[in-house]
């Protein structure tokens, strides 16, 4: 019964977050200085010269507004937007790339971003926590200290510097990896998979290095503190093997805050995506967001931003729902 209450509560919060986020997304672009309809009309008038009458222009404006969902009062626009965003997931056609629908753009870009960023976030989390655990548990050991120092050094370096260094070293000096991502369209074959891996390696490496240090530091501090807990001492005095103590006693407890951190990182995936995809010309959602904003493409902005909000909220929901599996004390609260 408690479990059902717990799930219902979390899902309720999830829906609230989605609703609030989407509402903000609806209003913010309306304060942007560039109006896509006027921009488009300006271009048409410029191309057509004097042949367009004022009436024609007015008619064009009307039909464009209707097409782009900009017609009617703000309230009715808002209601229809909420309906489309939350229920049918239809953001209409892209304004800059008319008439290709926004959902199609997103469908092409999303797998790239999700593939790259979930893989690297999970890898950085796993590696960082493993190193942090060893560094905290075997405090003073030479090898783990070296690894820990690498983490400490990497941690404060801004991501774009790491990325640029990697690009310079591995794409210019030793051109092992391509400078920018180019992937031929076509069916997914083994060869193509290899190509995708080769093209994603540099951005992936930069992301892993950037996320690694943070995880090392967090886990090391937690593991070091947990190691002094009475239940760890008691396990040692029982004669429990070190390996079991490290994973079942120290890690199982020290990882709890790290799981929350993983959820937050997962949610911020799209933040990272914009910068990564710009630096590496990677064809994902980040590049799409940049393109949409640069072109004042309302519908595309709505689509991509709504997507990132759904992703953040869903990641948080999943972690919330899984958390009781890791911490049995949560279950009945």
């Amino acid at each position, binding site marked *: 019964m408690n479990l059902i209450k717990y799930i219902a509560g979390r899902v309720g919060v999830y829906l609230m977050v989605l609703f609030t986020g989407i509402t903000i997304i609806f209003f913010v672009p309306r304060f942007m200085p560039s109006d896509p309809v006027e921009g488009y009309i300006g271009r048409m008038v410029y191309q057509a010269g004097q042949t367009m009458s004022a009436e024609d222009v007015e008619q064009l404006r009307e039909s464009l507004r209707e097409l782009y969902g900009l017609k009617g009062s703000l309230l009715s626009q808002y209601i229809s937007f909420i309906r489309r965003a939350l229920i049918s997931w239809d953001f209409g056609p892209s304004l800059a790339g008319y008439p290709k629908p926004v959902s199609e753009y997103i469908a092409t870009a999303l797998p790239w971003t999700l593939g790259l960023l979930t893989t690297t976030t999970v890898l950085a989390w796993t590696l960082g926590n493993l190193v942090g655990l060893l560094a905290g548990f075997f405090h003073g050991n030479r090898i783990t200290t070296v690894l820990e120092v690498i983490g400490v050094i990497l941690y404060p370096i801004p991501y774009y510097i790491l990325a640029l260094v990697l690009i310079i070293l591995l794409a210019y000096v030793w051109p092992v990896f391509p400078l920018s991502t180019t992937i031929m369209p076509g069916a997914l074959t083994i060869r193509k998979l290899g190509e995708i891996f080769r093209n994603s390696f540099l951005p992936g490496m930069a992301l892993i290095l950037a996320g690694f240090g943070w995880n090392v530091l967090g886990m090391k501090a937690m593991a070091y503190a947990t190691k002094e807990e009475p239940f760890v001492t008691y396990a040692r005095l029982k*004669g429990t093997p070190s390996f079991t103590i490290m994973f079942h006693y120290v890690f199982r407890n020290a990882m709890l805050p790290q799981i929350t951190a993983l959820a937050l990182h997962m949610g911020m995936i799209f933040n990272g995506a914009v910068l990564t995809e710009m630096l590496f010309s990677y064809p994902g959602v980040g590049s799409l967001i940049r393109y949409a904003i640069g072109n004042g493409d309302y519908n595309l902005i709505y689509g991509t931003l709504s997507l990132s909000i759904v992703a953040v909220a869903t990641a948080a929901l999943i972690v919330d729902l899984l958390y009781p599996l890791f911490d*049995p004390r949560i279950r009945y609260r």
Partner: protein
Amino acid sequence: MIRLKNLVAKYTTVRGQVAAVDGVHLEVPDGIILGVAGESGCGKTTLMKVIYGDIGFPLSLASGSVEYGFCTERGEPVTTTNIRDYWFKRISYIPQSSMSALNPVIRINRQFVDFRRNSKREADILDRVRQYVQELGLPAEAIDAYPHQLSGGMRQRIMVAMATFFHPDIILADEPTTALDVVVQKGILLLLMNLQEKMKNTIFLVSHDMGVHYQITHRMLIMYAAKAVEYGDTNAVFERPLHPYTRLLIESLPTIGDTQTRQGVAGRPPSLWSDLRGCRFADRCPFAREICRMEEPQLREYCAGHMAACHFVDRFM
């Protein structure tokens, strides 16, 4: 027989070394409950650590050793150097707070078996454990629970079950009931007593409660400022205490029907860091003389099995 041979154990700190157990030399007969009492900071926990063989930074054994009275498979006597191999097999330990001594995110049954390296089949052991905890007054399902799902008393019973399940020769219990309310305390202590009667192992019981010592221990060790000051059968110690400190400890116990308020022992024990000369109790002792401040009294046997470290034991004989 367990022999504590001239144990000196020191803590290393930034200020230097301090001896928290200073020359304890005793023989403990097998199959008894030995009570250990003394003021906070007198070295009871440190003595337990030394006996358990849990010696590691900052604690070090400056001299002496413990002989446990049993042998390895190869017939060599087990001493401080190899006692670790027998942890929870022949020597076990009951921690003070069961709340924090159990891993909160793992079921108790796992914690019951994870120190036995692939001995028999785990399922068989767990079946026996289930039966065993029932004998100890717990529901069998208790071992499938997480620690937070049990009450404090149940958890402490689990700790007792863990420490006794493999029938160890020696059990160390450092204030095993201080975190519990009085009724539960009594239940746990009676349980320990009954188990000891059945299994005939030796229990070292550290407690601040002289009443507990009187009721359940067979012999008593009184410690003062890192030293053993009195050692003897519990009845003898309570009826005819030889050391003035013991006497004061016992007099501070309330008795039923007694109207005058009880006083604790006035003053404080000397700092282990100071220059300790003569008898360490001299400053608080109502009978102290010149010699007490100059010369350290040795622990001597005055009647059969009753020892004390005082220059003027004769006064109480």
